[in-house]
């Protein structure tokens, strides 16, 4: 029998024929052969290799993850990477439609290509790649983890991130920073950091009492004879976007002056290469790079963008390594006389049928998942259509969650947070408890039901829209738009706060939302302490048990202009 690995090497050719409906697959694509050797191929350069992973979100296993079809930029970021999607993305980076890169990096023809190219990711595949780079580059390699590593799966939630910590430990990162890590609460974070064996950096975190540094700001390492300062920047709006009550003694922020001060300090301390390991989000980092002097590299994170090329802002290189364990970034640098003379970059997609699993990591993953394996495998229902989340507005997985909220909580309107993590499920697949928890596993999962006036709903939608579409990136928070069930609206992303949202209507009746009327609203992931209700995964599971098979058509409830 032909193995999956063998299959994929010819898959592109045959799949191109069977799945290339309307995509105009080229001869070159049809002839493509995907091998581990090719995925890892890299002409080495210089004396330093930075390996970057970020936003793994608790995903230890290979997965399907559809990249966004809508990822709008505003202000100066409009039309600039990462705010290009689909065909435009392919054209911009010279990627052939239907190719493995098109599948890994865009939403184009996703369902068909997913069937040919299979799942991507798995920390055991990442381990194979990282080991290969280390074998080749020896003491030149630094491995940096941009955070959002310990959250996003059921096993991560149940072990408070220990599953990820134990697996990542085998990779021996040189440093990490964080965001969702903080949603396990201050005590757990402190305890976990104590056992890491490498620094957890956050130059922008201070204690709320005395306004003093609460975390290590940087670490100085030597690789390939080059002194490298790695500065860490945690997600600046953790206490705004996530429950502040879980980390009452820590205050965050962009703190641009502090970044500059740390760069200056590192340079004075003899650093020849200064790297910011960042969880700011791409647009924030692009602005930061234009204003802070002396940063050689920013390893970006948070906004889950996967870019096949480095973006250069002034003298600073910005790297965007994607999310969910799909990619490993390799950046080779020639550092001489305290500056980067040349670089070469590759975003390596971890095709799980092509890249071998590292045995040691595979065993560890099996071990940490074992206690949860029976629960994770439970089939809750089936989907006839693609379930995905990522995108500025509603994704079908969120529509499913909103449907569950409306029906199971007998509500008129449902609100679901615009998280960017959460895996995809292909048409015809079973929906397992693992799939549902991959989209919902947080420490504040309670589903509330409450009355909200139409005016309040408008205020909330406007508020979230401004967190996403404020023209100044320093005022953005990086999530996607709140997902809404039962209500349709129009949005002009180019307008200022308070003027973006119009035409709010009830989907069922077409009746305009009355600012004065109170609507019954169900939602989850409230940042308020003491929110009560069943956990969201139970609500979705109950809904699926009733529906058995779901079909979610692409959402048409949001009309977007100004993009």
């Amino acid at each position, binding site marked *: 029998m032909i193995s999956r690995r063998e299959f994929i090497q010819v898959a592109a050719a045959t799949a191109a024929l069977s799945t290339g409906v309307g995509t105009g697959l080229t001869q070159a694509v049809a002839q493509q052969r995907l091998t581990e050797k090719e995925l890892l191929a890299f002409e080495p350069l210089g004396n330093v290799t930075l390996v970057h992973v970020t936003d793994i979100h608790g995903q230890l296993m290979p997965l399907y993850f559809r990249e966004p079809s809508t990822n709008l930029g505003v202000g100066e970021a409009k039309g600039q990477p990462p705010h290009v999607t689909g065909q435009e993305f392919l054209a911009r980076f010279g990627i052939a439609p239907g190719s493995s890169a098109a599948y890994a990096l865009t939403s184009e023809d996703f369902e068909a290509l997913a069937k040919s190219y299979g799942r991507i990711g798995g920390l055991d595949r990442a381990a194979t790649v990282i080991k290969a780079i280390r074998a080749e580059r020896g003491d030149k390699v630094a491995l940096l983890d941009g955070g959002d590593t310990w959250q996003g799966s059921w096993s991560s939630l149940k072990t408070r991130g220990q599953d990820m910590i134990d697996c990542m430990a085998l990779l021996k990162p040189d440093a990490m920073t964080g965001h969702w890590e903080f949603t396990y609460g201050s005590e757990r974070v402190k305890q976990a950091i104590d056992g890491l064996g490498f620094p957890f950096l956050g130059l922008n975190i201070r204690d709320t009492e005395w306004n003093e540094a609460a975390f290590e700001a940087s670490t100085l390492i030597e690789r390939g004879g080059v002194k490298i300062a790695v500065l860490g920047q945690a997600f600046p*709006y953790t206490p705004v976007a996530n429950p502040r009550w879980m980390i009452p003694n820590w205050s965050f922020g962009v703190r641009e*002056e502090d970044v500059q001060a740390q760069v200056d300090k590192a340079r004075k301390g003899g650093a020849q290469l200064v790297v910011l390991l960042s969880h700011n989000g791409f647009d924030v980092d692009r602005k930061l790079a234009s204003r802070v002097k002396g940063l050689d590299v920013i390893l970006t994170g948070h906004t889950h963008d996967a870019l096949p090329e480095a973006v250069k802002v002034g003298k600073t290189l910005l790297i965007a390594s994607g999310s969910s364990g799909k990619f490993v970034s390799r950046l080779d640098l020639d550092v001489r006389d305290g500056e980067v003379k040349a670089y070469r970059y590759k975003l390596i997609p971890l095709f799980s049928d092509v890249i071998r699993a590292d045995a040691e990591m595979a065993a560890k993953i099996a071990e940490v998942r074992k206690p949860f394996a029976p629960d994770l495998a439970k089939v809750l229902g089936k989907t006839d259509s693609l379930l995905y989340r990522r995108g500025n507005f509603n994704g079908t997985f969120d529509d499913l969650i909103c449907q569950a909220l409306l029906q199971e909580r007998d509500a008129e309107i449902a609100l679901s*947070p615009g998280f960017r993590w959460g895996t995809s499920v292909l048409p015809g697949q079973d929906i397992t408890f693992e799939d549902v928890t991959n989209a919902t596993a947080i420490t504040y999962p309670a589903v509330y039901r409450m009355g909200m006036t139409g005016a309040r709903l408008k205020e909330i939608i406007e508020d979230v829209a*401004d*967190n996403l579409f404020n023209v100044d990136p320093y005022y953005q928070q990086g999530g996607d738009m709140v997902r809404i069930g039962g209500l349709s609206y129009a949005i002009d992303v180019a307008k200022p706060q308070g003027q973006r949202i119009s035409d709010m209507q009830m989907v069922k009746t077409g009746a305009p939302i009355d600012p004065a009327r109170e609507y019954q609203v169900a939602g989850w992931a409230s*940042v308020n302490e003491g929110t009560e209700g069943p956990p969201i995964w139970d609500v979705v599971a109950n809904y699926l048990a009733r529906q058995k098979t779901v079909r979610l058509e692409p959402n048409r409830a949001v009309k977007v202009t100004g993009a």
Partner: protein
Amino acid sequence: MKAINRRQAFALGGGFVMLTLMPMAADAEVTGDAAKWIEKFTGGKQPVKGKISLDLPEIAENGNTVPLSINVESPMTADSYVKDVMIIADGNPNAGVATLSFTPLSGKAEAAIRIRLATTQNVIAVAKMSDGSLFTEQKTVKVTIGGCGG
């Protein structure tokens, strides 16, 4: 706002700063008009941008207690020093927040306080120097409902 709490005491003790908190609006007659407050402080003279570094978050973690630190460039000698710095929040029901008073003995014209912001708005600082010159700086602080980032 009656008793001086630890934070305010800290601001006081740190650099011999006198901190006068504006009375909260007691009746509807006091408007939240930032321009009026500034005019009263400057005597109608136009302050120029500069000299002040105003450290505020872009987005407040908690609108009820927003950390603000301010530093005004000055030699702080008997001949040349910062006399008073007024802090204004143009979207609060009562725009006046505090006036910080310094003397050459302060050593530095620097203070850290916490302010309350009702909504997204501009926080404006105006510094009055011993020679009567006026400087200003401002920053928008967003007060958000929060909760959907990720």
